[in-house]
């Protein structure tokens, strides 16, 4: 599988979840693990460009596919990805635990709807849980990300 552009062999143990593989075998700890049954959205990564739950995939299933994690959105020292920049500007995070999952879901949302309506924003982030922000700043961040993505 390719993870953030680099080729990696799939783990030998088929029961290794993709989320655990990313964190424990590849050291990509930006992908967070919350509920491990697909509800919280923290572990969301892009599989061939579309957001998926990495806790609901076996790592072996990613073989032959492209996986993008939060680390793959912007290189160290490079300008932030527009979605990251928007979360920064709009205070779309407090503790930050849910943030990588939100950011990856929003990257997927803007891929599907470059100019999302308020309803599409709500629908697009409804699969991610945040216990700090109350969501209002995250909604603003999504709209801001759509603006930044067009520049």
């Amino acid at each position, binding site marked *: 599988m390719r993870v953030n552009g680099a080729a990696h062999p799939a783990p030998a143990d*088929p*029961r*290794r*979840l993709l989320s*655990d593989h990313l964190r424990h075998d590849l050291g990509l700890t930006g992908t967070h693990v919350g509920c*491990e*049954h*697909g509800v919280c*959205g923290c572990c*969301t990564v892009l*599989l061939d460009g*579309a*957001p*998926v*739950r990495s*806790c*609901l*995939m*076996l790592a*072996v*299933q990613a073989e032959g596919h492209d996986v993008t994690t939060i680390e793959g959105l912007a290189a160290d020292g490079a300008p932030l990805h527009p979605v990251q920049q928007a979360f920064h500007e709009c205070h779309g995070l407090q503790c930050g635990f849910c943030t990588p999952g939100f950011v990856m*879901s929003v990257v*997927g*949302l803007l891929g*599907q709807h470059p100019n999302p309506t308020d309803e599409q924003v*709500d*629908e*697009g982030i*409804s*699969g991610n849980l945040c216990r700090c922000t109350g969501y209002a700043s995250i909604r603003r961040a999504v709209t801001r990300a759509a603006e930044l993505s067009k520049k």
Partner: protein
Amino acid sequence: MKPPPFEYHAPASVEEACSLLASLEDAKVLAGGQSLVPLLNFRLARPAHIVDINRIAGLDRIYERDGGVAVQALARQAAVEDSDLVARVCPLVSAAVRLVAHRVIRNRGTVCGSLAHADPASELPAVLLALGGRVVARSARGDRVIDAAQLFQGVMETALAPDELLVEAWFPASPRPFAIVEESRRHGDFALAGAVRAAGRLALFGVAPTPVLADPRDPAKGLQPSGDLEASPEFRLHLVRVLTAKAFAA
């Protein structure tokens, strides 16, 4: 959390998958994994073998046949949601699939997987039942067509035999008017109760061990829904009446 140990198989063809299912004891088919992998993570399911069908090429088609839409085993819910063909021929399915979990889940989850999983609170089994659709079950013994009315046998139980793979679901064209309405605690949650209308036919979900057909004039008749922390049996019966009235208001 991690799944219990299992032997992993990734067949490259439907024939190979069927031959594995015929020869293996205690095998589960893994398609989208959005229901099976949580069950593995919680260790509520401990199959000895996992047959992952995701490597099978050409099993993700959505196409028109016999005046309806056929959806193959690997067609993702998101692809069905975005399909112009489904929107044109079977808009009830387009509407229903948008109520299944969240887009990120639908990017992996499959329509056929929802049918085979047969959760009593899920939308697509009730839609198949309301429309009078069918599924094709394939095994080394051949193909078997199962009507929706026969497919759903109990809570997460279907008429599929252990050696059969649900290769395709067929949804008849949506008659008009149609509607799907449900009540859930949060957007994307499983429904506390739901109603599907296909012209004069009504199917209910979340209120019995399987989706059930009901009389639109007296939809709660004979129902004995279970109660849980989220809804009492009485509240579910109330929802059935309210949702049916909404579905038939159009």
